[in-house]
């Protein structure tokens, strides 16, 4: 059996940050990730991040992935298993991992679950046609593999992801027919929306997809206006000749592993779905299990790095290896509070207020 002090599931911004923080405290760490390169979804983020310098503000996601991967390589205490899938975690603190077609048992004294989030789908006739793609899939195809997702795209959702992906499509030489948004307001930052408007991409608020048409793949989309009860208004239909409908309608935390472990979960719409109850140190109701990043509630890359670092330090403290934990914790928390401040952080703050609980363990 492979033994490690700390096992981290997921090598995205949260998992990498957790592993680096723990190793900084002298904790032997194993990261298990199903991707082939470290960085998780950072590897397709060509835009520059916001936030503060400590979270690499002003740096493109792809470069942050390389920075974190470089730090990982320089940390002799961190072992990294790529293309490895965590299958389950059991009472005797054994994490079962599939790697190269074999099951490996990993015994760990503490575990950080940083499994990220998955894209949401949306209900409309024809939503299963080839060409209805998640925004992340569009980014993966064009920004990682260099393949255009189509010739002309309809974007659904005017949050930051929808707006950023629209701009990235234009950069890749793909036309964007329009961005439709069910809400009356553009959810993403004005700076992203303005970029699109300068390039004459219409952003239609109070509009959604009525139907996708096509034989073997998307050939056309019908969009219509919706009223204040989100009901379609007959007679307002607009037809778009598009071969891709790109859904940027939010993410849900990937929490299968946490559920299997038996961590107490709670449905919190503001955080994207079921998330584990935890204390302010990211410790779940199972005392040796910590959570980080989008798996703890959907936010963004910068906050994932911070909750990751916090979980890494907290796991180290749990293992008795982080004497300066209170200061490190306060530093992470200050940065998180700054990211979550203001009107754009209101939803996350509301979600956290019901899920961060002393019901979870105390390290």
């Amino acid at each position: 059996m492979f033994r490690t002090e700390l096992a981290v599931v997921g090598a995205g911004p949260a998992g990498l940050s957790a592993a680096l923080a723990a190793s900084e405290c002298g904790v032997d760490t194993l990261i298990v990730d199903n991707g082939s390169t470290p960085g998780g979804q950072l590897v397709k983020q060509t835009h520059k991040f916001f936030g503060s310098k400590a979270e690499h503000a002003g740096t493109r996601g792809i470069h942050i992935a390389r920075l974190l991967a470089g730090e990982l390589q320089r940390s002799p205490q961190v072992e990294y298993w790529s293309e490895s899938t965590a299958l389950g975690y059991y009472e005797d603190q054994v994490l079962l991992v599939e790697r190269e077609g074999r099951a490996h048992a990993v015994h760990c004294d503490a575990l950080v679950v940083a499994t990220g989030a998955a894209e949401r789908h949306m209900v409309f006739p024809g939503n299963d046609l080839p060409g209805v793609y998640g925004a992340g899939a569009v980014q993966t195809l064009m920004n990682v593999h260099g393949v255009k997702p189509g010739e002309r795209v309809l974007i659904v959702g005017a949050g930051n992801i929808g707006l950023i992906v629209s701009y990235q499509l234009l950069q890749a030489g793909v036309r964007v027919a329009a961005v439709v948004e069910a809400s009356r307001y553009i959810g993403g930052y004005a700076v992203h929306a303005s970029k699109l408007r300068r390039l004459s991409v219409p952003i239609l608020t109070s509009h959604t997809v009525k139907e996708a048409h096509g034989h073997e793949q998307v050939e056309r989309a019908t969009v219509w206006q919706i009223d204040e009860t989100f009901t379609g208004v007959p007679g307002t239909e607009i037809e778009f000749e598009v071969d891709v409908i790109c859904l940027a309608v939010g993410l849900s935390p990937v929490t299968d592993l946490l559920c299997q472990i038996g961590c107490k979960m709670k449905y919190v719409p503001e955080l994207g779905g079921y998330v584990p109850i935890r204390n302010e140190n990211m410790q779940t109701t199972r005392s040796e299990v910590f959570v980080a990043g989008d798996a703890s509630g959907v936010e963004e890359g910068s906050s994932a790095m911070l909750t990751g670092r916090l979980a890494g330090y907290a796991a180290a403290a749990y293992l008795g290896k982080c004497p300066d934990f209170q200061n490190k914790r306060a530093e992470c928390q200050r940065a998180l509070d700054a990211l979550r401040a203001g009107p754009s952080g209101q939803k996350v703050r509301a979600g956290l207020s019901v899920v961060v609980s002393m019901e979870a363990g105390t390290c």
Partner: protein
Amino acid sequence: MRIERHPILTFTKGAKVQFYFEGEPLEGYEGEPIAAALHAAGIRCLRHSPVRNRPRGFFCAIGNCSSCLMVVDGVPNVRVCVEKLRAGMDVRRQKGKGDLNVSD
């Protein structure tokens, strides 16, 4: 449908290789996901669904959603959005749940 020029990104690719889609030869780059090679060749319909025989493509492109299952070298239920392309692969659209080829 490959991106030729990009203001930020450069794409490093493996060797150009031939593979087969429904028996027809196609070209792609070694090591890229099979789905990327197919998409670059204009192929988006990857399988037909078990109950209503509906065409399906990929959705998540990172191996989570199982929308892209194809038969690769005779093995069904391969997630082609993450399975890496190799020279000579035999890639076929999956019909329904796919048949397991059990020899013993």
